[in-house]
Structures are given as structure tokens and as C-alpha cells.
């Protein structure tokens, strides 16, 4: 989509907005992961705060509801000493007919330094990034089916934390790939960081038609797809994005694609299990796995704060 000029980078090739992992060089991804590593130490201290973004105004613009992502961005911004303003826009100006760009222009006039944007429409953060003045940074906190780069990055951080070297891994992404912005960000991040084998597993109706162009191996059968993998990345079944008959029923989905202890036993014995949350227990993942010893789902949430601190501080400094 943006092959010639990447709107995320400034003229020095540094990260100015974080809109999508697609098109970002591995060097920038590794810089974010390394910086997050140092922030993990900060969040373990007595005072879990650094003065880096003191006096900066960061606006959480959530045009689509979210609790976890908004909260972790808010915590991250506060730990960087920024001022955070939360706006749930579906219930304010949008319902009065104001356009997205008018909303953003008004907030920019209130001296915003950074916008964290969640929107149900793919491309909304790009649109905002193109129209803000060049001293404002935009972070995509999830847009439609397109991308959720900070989730992809925190997943990479989690994998690196437990598995160290990306170049030795087999990774499976399981479930509703079609509707998942998380899956797209994960696939781009994994391939950019050098994972040699990325698999996607799901029913034909929940896989995008062009998925094999993304450099992944496609499986429709869990028994084959999970064999000997090091990392299992589960996705949430997105009922709210399904308008049509993609699935017979959630029970049917669980039978074939739900992660149970029996299915997980096909992966390597030390395989880790990730899930971006919120989980549908008994639909895509069984509770014995979600709460089991191979699950790293709660560490993902903790690492998410450090990743968002890293992204915000790198952007603000560029």
C-alpha cells in the first residue's frame, strides 16, 4: 500500500507515527523491543515512573470501545509522566455529526502532542496522521481489520522473552485470521524479525483469500498445524465483526479449532501459548490451557505496558 514512501517514517528514516508493522524495518522493531526491555525494569521499581514525557499531552481517541488497550496506553503514558486525556468518541461529537478530522483538528488546537487512535474503520489512523501537523505523533491502537501494531510488538516481546532467538522458531497463529488486525500485525512482525516458519490455522471461511501471499503456511487441521511448533498464538473469535454465516456455531468451532490440552500436546513440550485477550473461554481456548503452565497470557498484558512506553517515548523523541 505504501511501498514508495512510508508515512510512518520521518525524513531521517526514524519512526514518526506507528500505524502498522508492515513496511517497518527490522531495526526499528528491535529498537522498540530493546527499549521496552529497559522499561520493564522501571515498572518493577518502588516509583514506577520516569519524567521523560513530562508536560506532554497524549490523547486516547477511542472511536471503538476497548478497555484493556486503552488502559494499558493510559498506564504507559502516565508512567512516562505525560498528561493523558481519554476520549470515547462514539458517545460524544461523532453522534452530533462532527467528522473525524474536525474532531482531531479541535484536539490539536488544544495542544495535543500525540494521538492514540482506535477505530473500527481500517485506515482511520493513517487518515489522521496525514492531516495532523508534523509535531504531532499518531499511534494506531487498532483499526478495523487492518493492524494493531502495539499488540503485534508486545507479542514479539513476549516471544523473545521466553524463546530468545526468532530465527529458530516455528510459530502457529490459530483461529479467525480473516477479521483479525492482530493476526496481520503478528505475521508482518514475525516475518520481519526472521521467524523461518509462520503457520496460520483456521477454517477456510476465516482465512483471507490472499493469506499465502503473506509468506505463511496455511493449515486447516490443528493436528497438522500445531505439530512441533514453539509458539501458539490464539486469536479471539470476533463475533462483533461477523455479519454472515462464517461458522456453524461456537461449539463447532471449539471442537475443531479450540485449543485444548490434547491439541497443545502436539506442539513442542515447552511451547508457549499467547492470546491477545479478551478470551472467549470454551470457544477458542479451553480454561485448562488458558490458566495452564504454558500460558503466557498475563505476562503479555504486563509487557504491553512496557512496549507502549517504548513506542511513545521513541516517537516523542523523533
Amino acid at each position: 500500500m505504501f511501498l514508495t514512501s512510508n508515512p510512518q517514517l520521518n525524513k531521517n528514516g526514524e519512526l514518526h507515527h506507528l500505524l502498522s508493522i508492515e513496511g517497518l524495518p527490522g531495526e526499528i522493531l528491535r529498537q522498540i523491543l530493546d527499549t521496552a526491555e529497559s522499561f520493564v525494569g522501571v515498572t518493577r521499581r518502588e516509583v514506577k515512573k520516569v519524567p521523560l514525557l513530562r508536560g506532554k499531552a497524549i490523547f486516547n481517541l477511542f472511536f471503538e470501545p476497548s478497555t484493556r488497550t486503552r488502559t494499558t496506553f493510559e498506564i504507559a503514558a502516565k508512567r512516562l509522566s505525560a498528561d493523558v486525556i481519554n476520549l470515547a468518541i462514539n458517545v460524544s461529537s461523532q453522534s452530533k455529526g462532527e467528522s473525524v478530522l474536525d474532531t482531531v483538528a479541535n484536539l490539536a488546537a488544544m495542544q495535543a502532542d500525540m494521538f492514540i487512535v482506535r477505530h473500527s474503520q481500517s485506515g482511520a489512523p493513517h487518515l489522521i496522521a496525514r492531516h495532523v501537523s508534523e509535531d504531532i505523533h499518531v499511534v494506531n491502537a487498532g483499526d478495523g481489520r487492518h493492524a494493531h501494531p502495539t499488540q503485534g510488538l508486545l507479542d514479539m516481546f513476549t516471544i523473545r522473552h521466553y524463546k530468545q532467538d526468532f530465527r529458530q522458531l516455528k510459530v502457529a497463529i490459530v483461529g479467525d485470521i480473516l477479521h483479525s488486525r492482530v493476526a496481520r500485525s503478528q505475521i508482518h512482525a514475525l516475518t520481519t524479525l526472521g521467524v523461518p516458519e509462520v503457520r496460520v490455522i483456521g477454517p477456510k471461511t476465516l482465512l483471507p483469500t490472499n493469506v499465502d501471499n503473506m509468506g505463511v503456511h496455511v493449515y486447516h487441521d490443528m493436528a497438522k498445524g500445531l505439530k512441533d511448533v514453539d509458539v501458539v498464538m490464539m486469536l479471539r473469535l470476533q463475533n462483533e465483526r461477523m455479519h454472515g454465516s462464517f461458522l456453524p456455531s461456537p461449539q463447532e468451532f471449539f471442537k475443531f479449532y479450540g485449543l485444548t490440552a490434547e491439541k497443545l500436546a502436539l506442539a513442542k513440550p515447552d511451547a508457549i501459548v499467547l492470546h491477545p485477550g479478551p478470551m472467549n473461554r470454551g470457544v477458542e481456548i479451553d480454561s485448562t490451557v488458558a490458566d495452564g503452565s504454558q500460558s503466557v497470557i498475563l505476562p503479555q498484558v504486563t509487557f504491553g505496558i512496557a512496549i507502549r512506553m517504548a513506542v511513545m517515548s521513541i516517537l516523542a523523541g523523533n
Partner: protein
Amino acid sequence: MTARPLPDAEQLVAALIEKMRGNVAPDTGLIGIVTGGAWLAERLHTALKLDVPFGTLDVSFYRDDFQHKGLKRKVAPSDIPFEVEGRDLILVDDVLYTGRTIRAAMNELFDYGRPSRIRLASLVDRGGRELPIAAQFVGATIEAGQSVELKRDAQGRLSLALSTD
């Protein structure tokens, strides 16, 4: 530019150890500022036979030039393996110049707790202070027209070099 050669870092380390000996207790905490100060803290820690392990600090998240320079590429995690609250501390750095790094380090330290005292040890003091900060232990005072940095070779030997930035 100065034509005078830089002093031998190993001799300065020995001089610094002599100045600090007798002024530290076994539970004094040494904290080296990444990177040169951390190498120096490691050497001082061994020579002074302190009980508590030494800590390291990367002050990047506390620097006052973030607005102009942004974040450096690689920020090392700060690691303070002892309780700061109520402890006698010595900050260790390779080169003392404007004092801004030391200010950042003190700000960071107070986010770990309230030390009973902080003193400063520096291998060289090259003047040029922009803040009211002084070192209690100095290897040597030098005049240098440009930045000086500490280097460490594969054998762990320290040396001083003029740096280009």
C-alpha cells in the same frame, strides 16, 4: 585542542581507589553510570571489597536533553540489586563535565528510595560545570578541549580517548 597526552586510566583507577579506601563502609552501595562508569564501578567494587553488589544506572529516561536529542538507540536496563532507602551511596562515572548526567542520575536514584547520602566518584574531572555539582573523589583533573571517553579492551584494561561527538 590540547596537545598534552591524556593520563593513563589504569593509574587513575589506582589513585581513585586509594582516595576512596577508608571512606567507604562494607554496606556502601556503588552505582556506576552506563557505560564507562559501570566498568569503573566494577573495578572499584572489587578493589574496595564491598559486601553489597554494585549497581548500574542508564540515565537515558531522565536526561534533560531528550527534547533535542530523543532517545538513544540502545538504553540499558538500570540494575540496582540492593535497597536504596537509607543507604550510603557513591555514584561512579568516568568523566565529570557539565554535571547534567549526575543530576539525571540523582533524580533516577530517588525513584528507588531515599538514600542517606550520595557522594560522587569520577575518574576524570574536565571542568565545564553547568550545575552546582562536585565530586568527592576524583582520579585527576584535566583540561581537554573536546569530549573524553573511557574505553575498555578485551583484557578489561581501561584507557582514556578523545571522542568525536
